[in-house]
């Protein structure tokens, strides 16, 4: 059932208006915080109000501009889009609270919060995009809006990282545009409301070119190796920005784009016939292992987190590339699972840095004794990544394995086990150091970071557990993921 509803335009518009108000409000710190938080909450409420309908299979749509003629800037919230929007707007509330605490003593806050709001506006736009062009538009806008955040400190290192980010993502954007033009040429439409729009009788080289262009383009932001180079360098940014990059918006936009390409542009059937997805799956499998190995070698905590993101994102890519319904469920659910666990870790890294100035893994010895709550949250996130049952990460691994078996590709189950071991090998030492070693060289006055930093951290960690235990509770994100999969596989011929 499709309903015309302006609420799905309202959601991105709220953040957009908030950004404009922040830019115009000038230096008023209290105003700014109220505005940012209010907009985040309001947006969350709007998206939440769409949830009941979405769970029952209602699809909301709204066309904004007829640009370019016949294609238009149009929004449409199906279950997959709702899932992504819900995850990012939930995290958004947490990140905003955290950012208000974290940025308290920094300069250029006006610019920071303004572009911060713009980012979430474009992210929801990506989630709700009705056609590839709207998706691309928001995707590019996201690139542009994250750049000022990334180079926020204006140090030469930040500028270098920013340049790298732009080179990667803009080149990716150009590739996507190339692919989009080809799709328009081949299919005559860009709509994402079907399960596959490309005609099966199109010339093979063209289809291959479309696949390569779109996958490589979105793969840049999804940090699929070898296109991941920008992500570890980008960790120089302030922590809330890292959270934005790694959990809320940027990399998720890339992964979401890939899901759209696989499920809505090509369609599962056509891809299965063409057989390109196997290559993508192989690449993702390689990235999972290689990312983990690289993470193990990093001493800088944020760098280790970054490589872990590279590895974790490829779970989603791999699951999507398996093309089976259960794997699709894993892919969609992992968008939330990875996001909450990773944002917890970044919040912890930021809080530790704020409280003690420490950034390296070996300096974390005994941290659990001075900052027990913070390190507790970190432990929860670690267990989730390793895939311990009752934590969010386990759900992904479980369904991914089932999906792999459905696709008769048992070696991916093996991969899950290897990856779990690797994850254990680089997260557990940190947990061990933090809890079972005595603190060294810490001044006596070190305490937990302020509640503005602590509260979102704990909330995110709580969510990690919640996502792990409530897969059978209706109304939770997981049921939305199931609804999304029903859509994807339902059109696959009732499978």
């Amino acid at each position, binding site marked *: 059932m499709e309903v015309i509803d302006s609420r799905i335009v309202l959601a991105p518009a709220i953040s957009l208006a908030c950004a404009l108000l922040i830019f115009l409000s000038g230096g008023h710190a209290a105003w700014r915080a109220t505005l940012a938080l209010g907009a985040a909450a309001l947006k969350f409420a709007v998206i939440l109000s769409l949830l009941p309908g979405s769970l029952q299979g209602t699809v909301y749509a709204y066309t904004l501009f007829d640009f370019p003629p016949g294609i238009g800037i149009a929004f449409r919230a199906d279950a997959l889009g709702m899932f992504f929007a819900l995850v990012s707007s939930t995290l958004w509330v947490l990140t905003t609270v955290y950012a208000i605490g974290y940025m308290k003593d920094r300069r250029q806050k006006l610019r920071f919060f303004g572009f911060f709001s713009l980012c979430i506006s474009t992210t929801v736009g990506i989630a709700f995009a009705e056609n590839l062009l709207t998706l*691309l538009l928001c995707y590019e806008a996201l690139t542009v809006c994250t750049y000022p955040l990334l180079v926020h400190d204006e140090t030469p290192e930040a500028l270098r990282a*920013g340049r790298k980010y732009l080179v990667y993502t803009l080149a990716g954007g150009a590739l996507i545009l*190339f692919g989009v033009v080809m799709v328009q040429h081949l299919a005559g439409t860009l709509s994402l409301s079907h399960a596959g729009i490309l005609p099966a009788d199109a010339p093979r080289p063209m289809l291959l070119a479309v696949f390569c262009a779109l996958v490589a383009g979105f793969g840049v932001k999804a940090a699929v190796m070898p296109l991941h180079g920008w992500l570890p360098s980008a960790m120089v940014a302030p922590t809330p920005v890292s959270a934005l990059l790694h959990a809320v918006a940027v990399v998720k936009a890339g992964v979401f784009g890939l899901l759209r390409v696989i499920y809505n542009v090509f369609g599962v059937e056509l891809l299965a016939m063409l057989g390109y997805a196997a290559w993508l799956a192989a690449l993702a499998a390689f990235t999972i292992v290689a990312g983990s190995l690289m993470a193990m070698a990093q001493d800088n905590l944020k760098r280790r987190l970054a490589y872990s993101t590279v590895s974790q994102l490829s779970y989603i890519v791999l699951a999507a590339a398996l093309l089976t319904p259960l794997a699709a469920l894993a892919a969609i659910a992992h968008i939330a699972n990875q996001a909450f666990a990773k944002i917890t870790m970044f919040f912890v890294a930021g809080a530790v840095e704020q409280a003690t100035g420490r950034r390296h893994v070996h300096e974390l010895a005994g941290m659990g004794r001075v900052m027990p709550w913070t390190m507790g949250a970190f432990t929860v996130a670690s267990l989730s990544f390793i895939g311990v049952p009752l934590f969010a990460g386990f759900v992904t691994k479980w369904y991914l394995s089932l999906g792999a078996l459905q696709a008769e590709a048992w070696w991916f189950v093996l991969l899950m086990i290897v990856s779990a071991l690797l994850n254990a090998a680089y997260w557990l030492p940190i947990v061990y150091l933090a809890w079972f070693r005595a603190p060294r060289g810490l001044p006596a006055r070190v305490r937990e970071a302020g509640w503005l930093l602590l509260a979102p951290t704990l909330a995110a960690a709580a969510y990690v557990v919640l996502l792990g235990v409530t897969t059978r509770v209706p109304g939770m994100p997981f049921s939305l993921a199931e609804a999304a999969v029903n859509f994807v596989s339902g059109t696959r011929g009732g499978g």
Partner: protein
Amino acid sequence: MSAWLPLAACVPLVAGALVPAVGRRRPQLAQGCALAASGWTVLATARLTRRLFMEGPFSYAMGGWAAPWGIELRFDAWSAASLFIALIMLAVLVYSGPYARAAIEPRRLPWYYSLLLLNLGGMVGFACAGDLFNLFVFMELVSVSSYALVAVGGGRIAALAAFKYLLAGAVSSVLVLFSVGVLHALTGSLNMADVALRLAAVESRGPVVLALAGLSAGFMLKAALFPVHLWLPDAHAAAPCPVSAVLSGLVVKVGIIGLLRTNAVFAGVDGLPMAAFGQVLAWLGALAIVAGALFALFQQDIKLMLAYSTVSNIGYIVLGLGLANHAALTGAGIHVLNHAIIKATLFLAVGAIIHQTGSRTLRELRGVGRMMPWSALAVSIGALSVAGLPPTAGFLGKWYIALGAFAAGQPGFAAVLLLGALLIFAYYIRILNAFYFRAPVDDNMRSVHEAPLPMLLPVLFLAALCILGGLFGRWPVALVAPAVERLAGGG
């Protein structure tokens, strides 16, 4: 009602002639007169465009002599560019108030406004001319006033650039005139529609090809297409900023509209190597896109950067013309209009910054974004738009041209187009980086203020058009659709 058409071109021309006389007695009235005349032109062209939308193309026979013997003014889709021309010129004239007072000697001020009005009248006339000779005369009116405008600010660099521009422009005029002569000798007519009909009956192909080549080469030189672009960067960088906006946004388009017009003349003739001609255009365009963007990347002077960006954008338009299918021509047509708005925005906004800070290299302009937020915002919008980021105006043209490249079965051109867009983005990122994210090199920057309102308003108006032109892109597309239909169908 029909007299609106000649009046649209004549009023600015007559006013241009009168302004120096008025300005001699009352120098402060010069700008007012210019504003009134260009405001009138905006109104007139807006009415004409509305009529075009409602009734389709229409003509006016000068002095009551019917075509093909009389002089015909014809208002069709390409003529609708005159509305954009008049709007941009109005913005430039408003902007000129504070800028010209500082940059141009007082005794030259009335002449400055007079030249701008002559330029405006020439361009409107050029867009509406129905016969080849008037096309030539109006083109010369535009060109001569442009040469003078480059030098109007004084200084030896400007004079040298103006002379260089003059030589290149004069050669292109000679080529065009020669080709017009050939066409007249072949067909005995000058009216473009009539020439197109009679050319089909001409048997010898050699002179026809000669005329096509002459016209194309002449107009390409006027449009500064890549290998013959050498006059452009100097002239556009040396001129006062409002003049640069006019030159870069509008005057080079005279060459493009000329190409479009004359292409239409040859479109119906059998046995011409039009396909090969299109390929040559497309390759030249592709070359210009990359070369212009690469040159721009290595400039320190911000105005030179913008000038090379024009070279690159002309490449986009010519590529679209060369591909010559429906989508590509739509893209080229839209980009003619949109690039005019975008480049005018950029030059005026950069002009405001140069006016307030007195410096024009990227290094000296570091940190200006904080001091002049509105001007810098306009530069940002213009930059994103010229790089073709959706949903700005610049995206629309590139989208259609890329579609056209696929429709023509030449995806390589689409790749070049995107590469060019990336390069363009790369050098605008350099500008934005300097404006916003670099610490100022000297302390004078801290005492810089935002530009005065008469400069700021036109800049922001044009910047808003950059975005609205994209979001409401339906209208320009509908505007050029019939003209494109004829060109693509005939080719």
